[in-house]
């Protein structure tokens, strides 16, 4: 049963943050920086490239695992943060993809992109970002 989430794939390594290989960010980012990125508050990478955030739908199990393990945020907190930005006009929403295949393709082909994938899907066409506590 998928009850609040993480039973099936609960190892910390099951999900990894990934970026476009040319994004040229550090291989280690702080958790707070990632929170600013995924809550859509930070607009550009340090080198000036616009950040493109990709996420799975709110009810996707991997989204929940990513949100809790990598950001230490509950998915509903991300949703409220995005809704506050979008519906007050003060920010934009992340791009929603509907499968991990689509996530992989978007991350591999979109400069400035960031998202997440389960470890089994990771290959050389995306760059893994490690999270500093």
């Amino acid at each position, binding site marked *: 049963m998928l009850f*609040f989430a993480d039973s099936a794939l609960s190892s910390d390594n099951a999900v990894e943050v990934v970026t476009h290989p040319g994004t040229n960010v550090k291989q280690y980012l702080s958790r*707070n920086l990632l929170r600013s990125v995924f809550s859509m508050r930070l607009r550009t990478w340090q080198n000036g490239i616009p950040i493109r955030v990709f996420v799975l739908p709110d009810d996707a199990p991997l989204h929940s695992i990513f949100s809790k393990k990598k950001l230490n945020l509950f998915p509903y907190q991300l949703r409220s943060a995005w*809704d506050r930005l979008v519906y007050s*006009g003060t920010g934009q929403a992340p791009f929603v993809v509907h499968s991990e295949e689509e996530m992989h393709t978007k991350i591999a082909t979109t400069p400035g992109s960031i998202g997440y994938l389960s470890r089994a899907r990771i290959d050389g066409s995306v760059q893994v970002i490690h999270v500093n506590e």
Partner: protein
Amino acid sequence: MSMNSRKFFTNIFKGIAGLALIFSASPGYADEHQVAQILKQLQVHGFLSQGYVKTTGNNFFGHSNNSGSFDFREIGLTASLRPLPRLQLSGQLLHRRAGEGSDGGIRIDFGFLDYNFMNTPAVEFGVRLGRMKHPLGFYNDTRDVPFTRPSILLPQSIYFDRTRNLALASDGALLYGESRTDWGNIAIQAGAAFPQVGDKDTETSIFGNTVPVRGDLKSRLSYLGRITYERPDGRLRLAVSSTQLNVGYSPGQNDIFESGSFRFSPLILSAQYNAERWSVTSEYALRYSRHHGFGNSGLDRSSTGESFYLQGIYRLFPGWEAVLRYDWLFANRKDRNGKKFAAASGYPAHSQYAKDLTIGLRWNITPSIMLSTEYHRVNGTAWLSPLDNPDINDTKKNWNLFAAQISYRF
């Protein structure tokens, strides 16, 4: 004077918006590929809801008493364009039908330009020009979007739908900044703007509905501000927000009122704690209002109202949420039981307070379709609309409200 300043803001907004579009989209500067890239940054979202309200004793959002009313609908279209990482243009069109107070039509809910001077991992700073929702409390900026509300009706003590337009949105300029550190984020917004006064709802909130209003309300320079603290994990959120809204009045022919002014200054303290399965939210407000110079001793007075609610949300299963809330409102904190008011005016004391116990259930059928329902047991009528309940003596002190709503968004 105020008209000139208002035009000034409007012209600045138009000018900058125009320049931004020319700069970002003109073929002289950008080839087709770049134009396509810019249009990729266009985001369009929308929402659509239909509500049902049934009450016993009084009317809320239409003729809801006994028979029930479908007179509650919200339709919104939100667009944003970010032609440059630093620049965002945003707008929202809103159609809202909610009883006599909001009788439909399409209005520009907000429309502004946002320029981000600085945005680093540690600091953000920028300016917004145009029409903005007031940053008041946790919910005012997104109050007409069902998905952003904890319940179908927001706690009416603070987010009253009775006379909502004055405190809703203003045209002007606002500075914003955010500091992000390991111990939390502090965000500040502060601005000056002209509130919207040209509607029946605002007229009723200033003059009541017992006398004909012959003159015109004038929007005057007003001030807005909010400071928010949020722990990095968002578990704890705190906010202090306030506005000082100023409205002038030019009398008409044979007017019983002189050219007075009205000021409304709410101060709101907000706190929220978010855990995995539950959230607790509470807000407290002091609402100062003052009528001055109308040459009418019944009207020229000031008072401070008081509002408070405590709300718990419990996430039962994925997609299911229950809400329990106690909400109270006093029209005048020096006359909480309304007895002084009743003695002086002959109107019911219960029109001066409202205590509302709400229980609700919400089901997110999918991330974009939501079904919600709630029941209110209310003592007092302070947040009832006089437009839906024209005879104050005819209102019932104890009444119930049931509401259901289906909402869709994209």
